[in-house]
């Protein structure tokens, strides 16, 4: 089954605006994380929210998790041109200690100066 489907697929905003990205998943999870990927580069961990948490903040990032709807959102406030990147949600479930991450297709965010 597919996990971590983000929407929108692409988002273009002006510097200073807020950017909201959503992620849905299908199965029960332990954690949901958001990662960022600059073009052609590796994945950088942004924030992790556990299944028993509803909201988490880190700097300009705010993540919410609704396990009843199996969805999460990532809000970036006061966006900057440097926030331009692809953002992926990733979920994990305990499976014999492997805890592989299952990624969505990502949202490509463009912040215009």
């Amino acid at each position, binding site marked *: 089954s597919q996990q*971590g489907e983000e929407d929108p697929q692409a988002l273009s905003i002006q510097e200073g605006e807020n950017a909201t990205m959503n992620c849905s998943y299908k199965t029960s999870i*332990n*954690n949901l*994380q958001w*990662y960022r990927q600059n073009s*052609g*580069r*590796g*994945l*950088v*961990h942004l924030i*992790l929210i*556990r299944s028993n948490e509803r909201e988490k903040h880190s700097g300009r990032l705010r993540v919410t998790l609704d396990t009843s709807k199996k969805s999460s959102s990532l809000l970036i406030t006061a966006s900057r041109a440097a926030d331009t990147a692809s953002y*992926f949600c*990733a979920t*994990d479930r305990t*499976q*014999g*200690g*492997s*805890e*592989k*991450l*299952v*990624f*969505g*297709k*990502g949202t490509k965010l463009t912040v215009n100066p």
Partner: protein
Amino acid sequence: EPEVTQTPSHQVTQMGQEVILRCVPISNHLYFYWYRQILGQKVEFLVSFYNNEISEKSEIFDDQFSVERPDGSNFTLKIRSTKLEDSAMYFCASRFELQGIAKNIQYFGAGTRLSVL
């Protein structure tokens, strides 16, 4: 700050050739992973490795793939006979599990872009 390093950054090979992708995970990490990302698609799990053995592998990770931790620092992914469809970005990741704390933050390398011609 410690980081996961991968070499080479770009590998070009002919179909049917063997390739070895190398990774140096963060030194005190215990769990190691390989993922791949075909251009324009999602990041897909290939294999996880713990305590010198594979703990889980995906359907993609068939007999053509193998992993090894030959010494205390390197973690390698070998593809025995590359196919055109193996062209992708391959990411290595590692994590450190703190006893009693259920976190699964995986730290990724910058990736190796594999081009099979």
